[in-house]
């Protein structure tokens, strides 16, 4: 029964579109990363930084719409153990995306490769999950998008624990604090999303909420 429920749940949340999108992103990340790493004048594998920041971010943005059903309140009115389902949903996505993206960065995995891709997947998905709890699935992409856009250019040239904490997406995988930050964001986002689900904004009377 749970198997059928799981299938229906994934269908209701548009999982197939997400899988297609995430696969496309993984392919692009592989192509982009390989190209950048092969440019000696850019510094080799270290030049993959934009891919490492943006590929997991794109995947997390695509995950956003799957974090809420067509009618959140209707779903909440059912006796299903939603917190467990929500945690499972997000963790499954983290596992799938992190694995797929890490496979694209196996060449020199320690310099802006597989490890950093996995770390950023944790962080970005955590941020999207947390934003879903606060803003609703419709706008869940907003904080991650805004932060992702700015952090790349605004990251200071010097390094330090504090910088590694707030600029975790652009840190080398060896910076332990960046893993701490990304893991912390995932834990917080996951907890918020598990507890609250997708935020329900102003319900527009007389018609379903359009997304």
């Amino acid at each position, binding site marked *: 029964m749970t198997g059928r429920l799981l299938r229906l749940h994934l269908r209701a949340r548009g999982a197939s579109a997400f899988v297609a999108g995430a696969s496309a992103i993984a392919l692009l990340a592989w192509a982009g990363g390989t190209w950048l790493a092969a440019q000696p004048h850019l510094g080799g594998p270290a030049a993959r930084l934009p891919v490492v920041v943006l590929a997991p971010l794109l995947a997390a943005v695509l995950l*956003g719409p799957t974090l809420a059903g067509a009618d959140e309140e209707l779903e909440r009115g059912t006796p299903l153990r939603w917190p467990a389902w929500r945690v499972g949903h997000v963790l499954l996505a983290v596992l799938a995306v992190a694995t797929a993206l890490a496979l694209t960065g196996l060449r020199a995995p320690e310099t802006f490769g597989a490890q950093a891709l996995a770390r950023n997947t944790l962080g970005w998905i955590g941020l999207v999950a947390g934003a879903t709890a606060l803003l609703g699935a419709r706008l869940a992409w907003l904080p991650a998008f805004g932060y992702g*856009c700015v952090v790349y250019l605004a990251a200071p040239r010097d390094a330090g624990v504090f910088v590694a904490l707030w600029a975790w997406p652009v840190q080398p995988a060896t910076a332990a604090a960046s893993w701490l930050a990304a893991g912390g964001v995932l834990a917080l986002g996951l907890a918020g999303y598990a507890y609250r689900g997708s935020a329900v904004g102003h319900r527009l009377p007389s018609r379903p909420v359009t997304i």
Partner: protein
Amino acid sequence: MRRALWVELRRGTAPYAALAMFGAGVWVLAAHPDDWGGRWVGLADYLRVSLLVLCPLMVCAGAWQAGRERRRDIGELIAATPRPGWHSLVAAWLAVTLAGVAGTAVAFGGAAVLVARVATYAGGDWWQRAAVGVLALAAASAGGVLVGRRVPLRVAAPIAGLATYLGLAILTYWNAAPARLSPAYDGRRMYSLVPEWVIEWQATWLVALTVLLLAVAVRRWRVALLAGGVAVAAAVPISTGPSWNRAPADPAAVELVCTSSGPEVCLTRVNAFLLGEVAAVAQPILARLDGIPGAPRRAVDHTVRPAGASVAEDADTVWLYLDFQATALGGLANAEDLRTAFRQETGWGCAYRLQGDEFDQRIHQADNMATDWLLDGSGFWAEGASAGLRELPPSAQRAWFADYLDAVGRCDVPALVRLAEQP
């Protein structure tokens, strides 16, 4: 149109776009004030560098605004009205663009106030460069409007934004001629003049691109064709013309401004706002070197060093690298970096040239002593190394340093070892 524009400015995506652009602008400006502090051209260039962030935000805002009809399921109502579709679309685009540009202008305007307080060079083509940046923002929001209108995807706005980001990032990396079509550039061209034809063609290219994107969004194919033709016509000379990366220097910008008293310290007019603070660091060091044979007698802005500049390379001069040396308020960011320039003069080159067996730790010791003496006992990494030397009479100290310079110049290892053990 004014009525619709006003409503969109207040109730559409516009206010959020303004806020986002302001926030991003302030953040980016605050992150690297050394790139723009005290320099108009630096600020204009920094706007162009920041387009890497600002354009994706504009694309996202435009797409979100234009996707509203679909999100709110209002297409049916609008389809029954007589007004041509492009009116409301242009109103929506204009609202987002004006708001976004206003947000950016407030952030960069704040920085401009700081620059205006101290800037010593207001010439050059800085405002033309900034204007091209503004046109790029308008083109970005037009691209967003096109995506929002045509792509029925719930996450079309962020995906379009991130794709723009990735596209611009790749263009800045891509070392090929077509990459010059990107309005966001990587490098700083603070001391040169971008050729006028480049700025004119870039402006034409961006305006034509904006019209093209909007025309495709409202399916005005004839207008799109025309704008596309103009865009291609402008793109060809930009991407096939001679590279302007090595544009000729702006003679007024690199004109030297020198101290009127004490040992000579000269900075280019662009960096002249730092002259007071730089002189405060450099003059005491130059004063210590005064009269020592073979020692530099003046410090000059590194910018004029390349070929074709007014000052020839000579051993009399210490070159000061000032590109990242300004704070937001126009002060000197890091005096230690300047002192490093003098440390170079103390001949570290010799220690580097020696390999393996020839190398003697005492050479480092001599270098450290020289550096510390030169910097009056505050040598970076070598603090206190010259304590013994500085106990000698001043004339003996100077003689030691003259011997040291002589030995380093010839890379005379026994002489350096002797000097290290001497005092």
